[in-house]
């Protein structure tokens, strides 16, 4: 007992040992090959955040492919893609925000707020839907900016700040819709000017290989591509990783932390606007209570896709794959014809399976 105590004492001050150690560790001649070998390149690839989620997606796909006969049709696949895209677009923006170290619980109702605003503004004030679309964009970006500014001014955790804006928005959606239209859903705007052109932009369908594919699927891929490019190839991307990883260090080397965070919240606002416009022009009327609960799905997709809850790590591609897993699961359960009473349970089990598998794969590749 006394021996161990006396042993720990001098260790900190035994600098002569450090000095001798020092000389033994002369810098090796710099002969490192600047171009990485094939093996290193592969190692780099498998350490990407989304690698585990790809495994999870394959697992879910194979499972339903084997169990559900209708799942094998191309038409079914386009339904899966549509569901993935509708949830996946906000999830990409939420993933960026989470890499930047913050949450947004208001994203679900922000989608509804945007479509309600566009519909009511167009119907009540201008008569042209495009003006409503523009108004909704300004509003959505402002909600995002407000989230960011509140976060910075109050110094509270984003969980609390956005929970407040979530509740406020939920109330405003219901109250303002009732106030303006006298109903709890917006009216039919399909006969207003510009509706057809807006519908072709936000809610059209293409026939490819005999599948009717929603334009949302293409927008989803575009969102993923742009977000990935920003993250990995631009200064802002570097800053997003840094503010989420260690905000104080980033600030110390001159990264504009506040601007980055506000920008990320505005990115979520932009995605919410985009999906909100799709909802409006595809489904024509909007119920003011919609959107509640989706915020957690966005976060779940980002996490399944490899984002750390603590920030600083993750990818947009991963969030997209997370969305795909969720789309496959919710649709696959129906294709498999499982007892509908157990629907939510199965969704939970599949998400858990995909996430555990994801974590296992990531452990395997980072160990190697």
């Amino acid at each position, binding site marked *: 007992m006394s021996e161990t105590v006396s042993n720990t004492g001098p260790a900190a001050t*035994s600098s002569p040992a*450090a000095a001798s150690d020092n000389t033994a*560790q002369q*810098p090796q001649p710099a002969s490192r090959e600047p171009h990485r070998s094939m093996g290193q390149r592969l190692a780099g690839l498998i350490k990407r955040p989304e690698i585990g989620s790809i495994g999870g997606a394959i697992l879910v796909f194979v499972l339903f492919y084997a169990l559900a006969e209708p799942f094998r049709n191309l038409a079914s696949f386009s339904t899966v893609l549509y569901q993935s895209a509708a949830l996946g677009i906000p999830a990409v923006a939420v993933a960026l925000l989470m890499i930047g170290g913050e949450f947004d619980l208001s994203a679900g109702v922000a989608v509804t707020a945007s479509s309600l605003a566009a519909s009511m503004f167009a119907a009540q004030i201008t008569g042209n839907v495009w003006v409503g679309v523009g108004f909704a964009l300004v509003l959505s970006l402002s909600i995002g900016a407000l989230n960011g500014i509140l976060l910075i001014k109050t110094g509270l955790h984003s969980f609390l700040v956005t929970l407040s804006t979530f509740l406020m928005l939920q109330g405003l959606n219901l109250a303002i819709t009732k106030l303006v239209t006298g109903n709890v859903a917006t009216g039919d705007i399909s006969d207003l000017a510009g509706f057809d052109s807006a519908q072709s932009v936000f809610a059209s369908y293409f026939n490819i290989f005999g599948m009717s594919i929603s334009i949302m699927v293409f927008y989803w891929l575009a969102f993923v591509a742009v977000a990935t490019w920003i993250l990995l190839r631009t200064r802002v991307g*570097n*800053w997003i990783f*840094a503010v989420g990883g260690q905000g104080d260090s980033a600030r110390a080397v001159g*990264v504009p932390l506040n601007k980055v965070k506000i920008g990320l919240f505005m990115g979520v606002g932009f995605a919410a606007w985009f999906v909100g416009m799709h909802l409006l022009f595809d489904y024509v009327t909007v119920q003011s209570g919609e959107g509640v609960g989706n915020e957690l799905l966005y976060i779940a997709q980002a996490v399944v896709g490899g984002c750390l809850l603590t920030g600083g790590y993750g990818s947009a591609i991963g969030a997209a794959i997370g969305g795909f897993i969720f789309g496959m699961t919710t649709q696959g359960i129906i294709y498999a014809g499982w007892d509908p009473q157990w629907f939510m349970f199965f969704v939970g089990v599949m998400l858990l399976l995909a996430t555990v598998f994801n974590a296992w794969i990531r452990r395997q590749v980072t160990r190697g």
Partner: protein
Amino acid sequence: MTQQKGHPLIRLTDVSKSFGPIDVLRGINLDVAAGEVCCVLGDNGAGKSTLINIIAGLHQHTSGRYTVDGHDVRFGSPREALDLGISAVYQHLALVPLLPVWRNFFLGSELTRGVWPFARLDKAQMKEITDQALQNMGIVVKDLEQPVGTLSGGQRQCVAIARAIHFGARVLILDEPTAALGVKQSGVVLKYISRAAQESGVGVVFITHNPHHAYMVGDSFAILSRGEIDLRARREELSVDDLIYRMAGGAELESLQHEMGR
């Protein structure tokens, strides 16, 4: 960038600092020359942090003179100090652990190609420069893409120091860079500190409470005790044992030993 060795970079003359009625620093005289390592030793609460915060521009001194290259200064922010080449490397605030080495190296000063909004990171060049800068200083990193968090503690400090030097630091303030490190890792950092001073000609203010570490790299020493300079000496003027004795509290410690009868 390299300056003539011995050229005085910063000088504090009779500098004092009070927070309200409390005097934290009194009558500090300190100078740092190019290519030299000035070690500031002291116990916890001796005023070391306040001293480096004044030098780095985080605080302003209450009285006395602070000159850089012979000109009086009074910094409003760390940015102003940085513009004159005075850069502080804090132990825990240096790097973002999850970011790759090269991204950390250029964080906040990224190189880009193309015009906005299509400006993209010039990855190849940044990696090459990082590689070069680290090699010049004798730091060997297996892969520049590996997260900084996977480097050893000593390597991390070295990367942060190399970054400060690359981005134009003439005076480096190192806040306890070896405090959280083991013996071997401390060696890596110490070796690097003396190399940085000798080869890049930067002046180094090395804050530590370990006299052994200080004596290995220091050209001059200042012991800070209760807000005052207790000892100011050049390396030729004292041995490592002197330094340890003075650092440990000298006569005070002797009387304590006597009292405890051991």
